[in-house]
């Protein structure tokens, strides 16, 4: 059942939140396993807390006062969001066992709306990665093929939803970490407009890029969750003080499959040579379906997008090196004390060496370099100018069209370990998703089918102007409706690995 169907079932009195929550906990117990044996989508499962929240939800509903349409529907939360009373590690050894004394605003809104929190999902350490192999607690596996990556950095959230361990999950998207895992696991992933969902309590990787958002199995479910977590938050200085657009209404409108009057731009720079043929075939089919649905499709050029990857891999490490300076072994987290009578600085160095993994060290040092005297203008300063050019490309494109589309990722899920020693190859996975983060515009990835050559999921990405997130939902829902009719059901129902897991 989708989250919307579970909510309907709760409203109709056909099931209880305790039953739903227990069913998902059972599923987690059956398939999640360990990094060696199962999906390993979760780092922490809070069965007791989730069941308590579910019982409270059932009591509210029995009294005739549910807090929200999704009251009682369980959810999983990426381990980068602070959860009071529940460990928050960001996939890092440096925060092993840390329990925050407060809730992130997103988490607080989930709790106030009555969604039982099943647990915290696995991720690349401090959200640095495209495969969830950089988690200090071992990788998550793709439910479509346990030998493959679930995408990153939010592979845990995507895999939990794909493996039916949770109907809903929260992810964060700094360069594509909701959309790219969505694409390679056959789920729906949304990066809202920057500032559209509060970042308070989200452990920052790169402040100017990070954005929390929904991971679900349907576009409607994403819209329901996005409307719940979105909206202004005075605790976050980057929060946009504007009402959330009518996302659920847009998803329902799109589900009619009619896009008459809509202009869609295919981004010329985000397809073609170097892209997996099966990805391009499914993408082209999706474009053809948009035309059949009544949309007018034109090719649009965004010439500076070819520099987005380089700009991103200078801006992100620069911000990350500054953000991660807070892990200094003094007030929280790991402390490694060398022998003798070490100074605070020596303790700090030893702790950061032991607590951070390779990818985090790589990016901290890269960021320190990009910000250092003599190189600042050549690297970081230029990257910020390229960011201006990318925003201008988007603005020019949106003068011609209502939304832009591209494949979400250049390839389907690759094999675990395949790109671990080649950071550049790993970074290329974010090629199509990064421009939206640099410009702050919203994007959705919806399943587009399976690549012919490997039978693995492909995603198509729909991008809209800032604060026009509703357009993503309208187009995403239309595509989903047409494709689901064609497949005779959800794409996830075709996942062979899931059959093995349900045994």
């Amino acid at each position, binding site marked *: 059942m989708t989250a919307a169907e579970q909510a309907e079932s709760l409203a109709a009195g056909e099931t209880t939140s305790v039953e739903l929550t227990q069913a998902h906990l059972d599923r987690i117990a059956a398939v999640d396993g360990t990094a060696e044996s199962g999906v390993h989508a979760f780092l922490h499962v809070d069965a007791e807390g989730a069941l308590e929240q579910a019982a409270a939800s059932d009591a509210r509903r029995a009294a005739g006062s549910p807090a929200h349409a999704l009251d009682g529907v369980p959810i999983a939360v990426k381990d980068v969001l602070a959860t009071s009373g529940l460990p928050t590690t960001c996939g890092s050894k440096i925060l092993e066992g840390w329990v925050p004394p407060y809730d992130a605003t997103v988490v607080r809104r989930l709790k106030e709306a009555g969604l039982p929190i099943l647990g915290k999902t696995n991720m690349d350490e401090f959200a640095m990665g495209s495969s969830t192999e950089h988690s200090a607690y071992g990788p998550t596996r793709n439910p479509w093929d346990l030998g493959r990556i679930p995408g990153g950095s939010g592979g845990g959230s995507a895999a939990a939803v794909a493996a039916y361990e949770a109907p809903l999950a929260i992810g964060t998207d700094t360069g594509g970490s909701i959309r790219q895992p969505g694409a390679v696991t056959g789920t729906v992933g949304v990066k809202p407009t920057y500032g559209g969902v509060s970042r308070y309590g989200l452990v920052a990787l790169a402040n100017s890029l990070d954005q929390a958002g929904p991971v679900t199995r349907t576009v409607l479910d994403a819209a329901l969750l996005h409307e719940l977590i979105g909206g202004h938050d005075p605790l976050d200085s980057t929060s946009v003080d504007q009402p959330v657009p009518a996302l659920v209404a847009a998803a329902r409108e799109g589900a009619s499959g009619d896009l008459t009057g809509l202009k869609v731009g295919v981004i010329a720079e985000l397809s073609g040579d170097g892209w997996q043929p099966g990805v391009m075939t499914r993408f082209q089919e999706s474009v053809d379906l948009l035309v059949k649905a009544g949309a007018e499709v034109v090719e649009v050029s965004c010439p500076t997008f070819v520099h987005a990857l380089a*700009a991103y*891999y200078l801006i992100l490490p620069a911000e990350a090196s500054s953000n991660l300076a807070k892990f200094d072994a003094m007030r929280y987290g790991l402390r490694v004390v060398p022998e003798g009578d070490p*100074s*605070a600085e020596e303790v700090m160095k030893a702790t950061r060496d032991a607590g951070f993994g390779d990818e985090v060290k790589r990016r901290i040092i890269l960021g320190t370099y990009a910000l250092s005297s003599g190189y600042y203008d050549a690297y970081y300063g*230029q990257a910020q100018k390229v960011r201006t050019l990318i925003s201008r490309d988007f603005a020019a494109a949106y003068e011609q069209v209502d939304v832009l589309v591209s494949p979400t990722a250049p390839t389907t899920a690759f094999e675990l370990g395949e790109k671990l020693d080649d950071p550049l190859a790993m970074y290329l996975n974010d090629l199509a998703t990064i421009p939206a983060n640099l410009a702050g515009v919203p994007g959705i990835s919806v399943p587009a089918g399976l690549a012919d050559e490997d039978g693995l999921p492909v995603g198509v990405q729909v991008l809209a102007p800032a604060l026009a997130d509703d357009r993503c939902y309208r187009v995403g829902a239309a595509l989903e409706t047409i494709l689901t009719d064609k497949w005779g059901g959800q794409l996830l129902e075709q996942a062979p690995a899931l059959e093995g897991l349900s045994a």
Partner: protein
Amino acid sequence: MPEPISRDDVAHLADLARIDLDDAELDHLAPQLAVILESVASIQGVADDDVPPTSHPVPLTNVFREDVVVPGLTAEQALAGAPASDEQRFSVPRILGDEQ
């Protein structure tokens, strides 16, 4: 074009970033950083001097609230995640070096 990054540069940067890398880590990281920097160097010259830099996708403004007292974390909550604490304070290693 800046000079290619050397192993010594990486060691110096690690020192600035307060990360105690050992020789094996330096051997592993230095060549990777050189390759990454060579790749991102393509960004130089893309934008002219007249292009303003963008540090943030939305304009930032200060957020103010009324100056009223609201409950904060208790000392116990604030210290709950501390590696070491003593008498309601964070206990930290020696701050000053031998020469001070």
